[in-house]
């Protein structure tokens, strides 16, 4: 089910596991570089096929969508009690959904932005790749160390 550990002793997740994780959550963060600065915005999202869609108001995210710039989409979950967590990152490009048919279909899905304002624009992130990492439970007892030792 998992394809081993990375150099930091974290479990690498398979693509299917990553998408399953994404589909099971609803809050993610869009990361993009704007004027040479990396920016991160939280968004409520949905998984639609093998892409990520979210609503937005006109602004930085939308302006970037117009340029089809490279973006990342990150979703994580931390479990304080067990000091474990999962982080999945989608790399891709984003664009605004312009097709009326597509917008109508997506509008029927439970895709709500919590933030107020006219968030009529729907942005889709088309993935180039997905990767996920999990902190193994009881990692210190498993003999898993950094550097893959």
């Amino acid at each position, binding site marked *: 089910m998992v394809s081993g550990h990375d150099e930091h002793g974290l479990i690498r997740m398979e693509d299917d596991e990553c998408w399953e994780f994404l589909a099971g959550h609803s*809050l993610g*963060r869009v990361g*993009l*570089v704007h004027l*040479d600065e990396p920016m*991160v915005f939280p968004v409520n999202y949905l998984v639609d096929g093998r892409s990520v869609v979210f609503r937005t108001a006109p602004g930085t995210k939308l302006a970037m969508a117009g340029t089809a710039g490279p973006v990342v989409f990150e979703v994580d979950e931390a479990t304080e009690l067990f*000091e474990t967590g999962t982080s999945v990152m989608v790399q891709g490009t984003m664009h605004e959904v312009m097709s009326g048919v597509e917008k109508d279909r997506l509008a029927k899905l439970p895709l709500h932005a919590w933030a*107020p*304002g006219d968030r009529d624009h729907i942005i889709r992130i088309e993935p180039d790749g997905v990767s996920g990492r999990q902190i193994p439970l009881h990692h210190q007892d498993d003999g*898993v160390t950094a550097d893959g030792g």
Partner: protein
Amino acid sequence: MSTPADDRSGPTLEVMSREECFQLVASLSIGRVAVGRHEEPPLVVPVNYVLDGEVIVFRSDPGTKVLALREQPISFQVDFVDPFHQTGWSVLVTGVAYEATPVEVEHLTVESWVGGDKEHCVRVMPMTVSGRRIRLPEIRMSDRGYL
């Protein structure tokens, strides 16, 4: 400066002051580091952090994260959401990061859930701080004594 709280009864998006932003950042311990990469999307990695004044400190292996952030602009993002009330806040700090010397972090307890050698700490000196909060409408008592 906040979105005008007009007569609408819905939530409003409020811009927070630098002081408020750091108060909220200090209240949590997991954030995300974003490092810009040339012609590529940024790398976004969740980290355990502590706040030292206004400096964000996190542990990192001497691996990709630390190497990637040298001479690159870095951002640090923290958010909190309340799914029941559908409210929350998000703070974005942009700054300059460098690998801390032992003296700079000896007074801190910087945890990391990821096992292995985490001898190296990174300090992020903030330059710009921005934060937004979804403010829910207040329920006010009317002067007639009922809601």
